[in-house]
């Protein structure tokens, strides 16, 4: 199955490493869209149907929590699962993300195994199994 995911993070390097990590986790056929904050993400969500949104928390203009809240208020967008990938590590913040409707949470710094575990929990096992030890894109952890 080909998935379509939106990566929302104000850091270009972080978007790049999340994409590489997802590919190395076996989701190699995934199509990726990118946004640098919540507002940009909502614009993309207005035009594209997605299987998953992966968002940072701390971003300018609209943070990840506000993005989740806006999505959960929308009849259509509320069906799209959201995975939060962030440096925020306090239990209170993690619980708040889940309470607002996040499907999962990954704390930075992350390992490919953590990303794979959360993706599999949300989307199921990838059909095209990749190797975390490397892959077609020479990604070695």
């Amino acid at each position, binding site marked *: 199955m080909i998935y379509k995911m939106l990566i929302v993070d104000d*850091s270009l390097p972080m978007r790049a*490493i999340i994409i590489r990590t997802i590919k190395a986790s076996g989701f190699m056929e995934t199509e990726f869209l990118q946004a640098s904050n919540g507002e940009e993400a909502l614009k993309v969500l207005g035009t594209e149907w997605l299987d998953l949104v992966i968002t940072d928390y701390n971003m300018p203009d609209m943070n990840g929590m506000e993005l989740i809240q806006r999505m959960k208020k929308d009849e259509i967008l509320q069906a799209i699962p959201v995975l939060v990938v962030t440096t925020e590590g306090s239990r209170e913040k993690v619980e708040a993300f889940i309470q607002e409707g996040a499907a999962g949470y990954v704390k930075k710094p992350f390992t490919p195994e953590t990303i794979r575990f959360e993706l599999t929990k949300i989307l199921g096992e990838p059909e095209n199994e990749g190797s975390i030890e490397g892959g077609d894109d020479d990604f070695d952890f």
Partner: protein
Amino acid sequence: MREALKAAMTTSISEVLETMFFMTIEATEDTDWTDLTDSTASGEKLYASKINFKGPLSGTFFLMVPESILSAMTEMFMGLEENEVTETHLSGTILEAINIVAGNTFSKLDDQTVFDLEIPDSVETASLSSITQSTDKELIFYRIETPGGNLGLLLFYSV
């Protein structure tokens, strides 16, 4: 508190550099970082980033990285070849690095407490000496030894 912060900082920087940048490091507390900020002494451009935070403690983390090490970190982080690395990639990498180090430090310090991190920003390295001389806050500095040279992690804070 100071000892707990120091322990959290060293664990955090080791974890972040090893997990995300595949670098093994040795962190040593120091009081003098002028060799890092003096580019004429090293002959190499220095990049620096900062992130302000508020909570039970408030203050600023600074990360100082010489260009050659930052370039190697960026190649590793983004999966780029040396000739593909741009100024945008370098600044993006050092901003994300300080963001993760700061967030991870507070998780290690106390995961029951919320610390609000601002958006990370670049720092003019020429201003680093004056910033550090004019503060009345507590200060912790770690020299981070890597196979490619030294980085600096600096924290100003007040309770």
